[in-house]
């Protein structure tokens, strides 16, 4: 028998030829992309205006303070016109609407572990900081309860566990568009029953609402070591995704 790799290559080539070529741009694409570009531009314009206004205001205060004019004097006012905060601190927090959550998990020694990746799918930079919340959901999307108990505990970030240098800017993680932060994840002992046998789960971004995570990308929950034993999920804080070992 020919090896399945060769058969796969041939199948893919054959199936790919079934797709007809595209000779023109669909009008719907033009319309939708015009809306997308306009909305992106509008957001950028608002950001520029807000930041620009802030800088102009700050400069005016500095000038007044320098000339000893009313409104510019006093130590409190001088303090407020001190150099602008670091870029990371000035950026907004990522909201759940801006991010997409994926999991990269695998089984290890009776548990499931890996990382949850939070990617910035918006066109603006934003920041993440602290520990996310995590909730397990049953098949009907309601939080699992009753006998299906579990605990969520905090653990150290992966860079710390690997004795790597502190990532720049941490604990604030700045996400450029398309960049990802990761959350260290480990889960042991799941003896869930009923609609919680293979639970779904969602994470909560501090101060920004919930970001749904549906399923575990084909990864099964950890094995049941004993229904009487606790099921524990350890999660780390947000950290730059590149801090993870590859």
């Amino acid at each position, binding site marked *: *028998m020919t090896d*399945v*790799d060769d*058969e*796969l*290559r041939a*199948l*893919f*080539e054959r*199936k*790919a030829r*079934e*797709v007809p*070529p*595209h*000779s*023109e*741009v*669909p009008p*719907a*694409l*033009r319309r*939708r*992309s*015009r809306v*997308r*570009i*306009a*909305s*992106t*531009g509008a957001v950028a314009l608002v950001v520029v205006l807000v930041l620009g206004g802030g800088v102009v205001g700050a400069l005016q205060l500095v000038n007044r303070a320098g000339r000893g004019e009313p409104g510019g004097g006093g130590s409190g006012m001088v303090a407020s016109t001190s150099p602008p905060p670091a870029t990371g601190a000035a950026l907004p927090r990522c909201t759940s609407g801006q991010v*997409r959550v*994926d999991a*990269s998990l*695998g089984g290890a020694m009776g548990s499931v572990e890996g990382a949850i*990746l939070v*990617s910035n*799918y918006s*066109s603006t930079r934003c920041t993440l900081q602290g520990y996310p919340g995590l909730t397990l959901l049953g*098949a*009907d*999307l309601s939080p699992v309860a009753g006998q299906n108990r579990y605990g969520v505990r905090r653990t150290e970030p992966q860079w710390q566990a690997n004795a790597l240098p502190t990532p720049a800017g941490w604990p604030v993680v700045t996400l450029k*568009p*398309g960049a*990802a932060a990761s959350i260290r994840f480990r889960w042991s002992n799941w003896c869930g029953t009923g609609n919680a046998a293979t639970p*779904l789960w969602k994470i909560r971004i501090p101060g920004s609402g919930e970001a749904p995570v*549906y*399923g575990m*990308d*084909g990864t099964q929950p950890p094995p049941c070591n004993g229904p009487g034993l606790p099921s524990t999920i350890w999660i780390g804080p947000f950290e730059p*995704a590149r801090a*993870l*070992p*590859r």
Partner: protein
Amino acid sequence: MLHEVTERRERTRVGRLGELYLRYADDATRLAYLLTGDRALAEDLVQDAFVRLAGRLAHLRDEGAFEAYLRRTVVNLSRSYFRRRKVERSYLQRHPPAGPSAEAAPIAQLGDRDALWRALAGLPQRQRAALVLRFYEDLSERQIADVLRCPIGTVKSLVSRGLSTLRTRMDGEER
């Protein structure tokens, strides 16, 4: 004045997106079709991918980067589609969990008689994506890891498990 400049920029970007569409839509649609097994769905996903990338055009310097970004967006959108579909199915609880993979439905619905194509449809979505990226796109394990955002070890395991499942199913078909 500002409005005119903005409008001119918008027109330029939409025009540039059109050029990129004509250049890359065929490849992207083939990839989406192999990932989903559904031509209409593939067309929709590719259009969604281009709309998403429209907002990023201003930051695009290298066209090679566009191709990689488009590929990743198509893979991510197909994964999101199957994930949504899985949740909908769980919620409605209309299908018993022991049946064929919910992710496989679009390919299975086609009634294709090709045994390998059907076997591919039964694979978990990540394994199928890894096989398509490896054997159709000819990407290296590192490149696949970048697209799927997972460690290289996971890519090796996805490809190996995918091939092994296909071999088993094909052997079963032959018998």
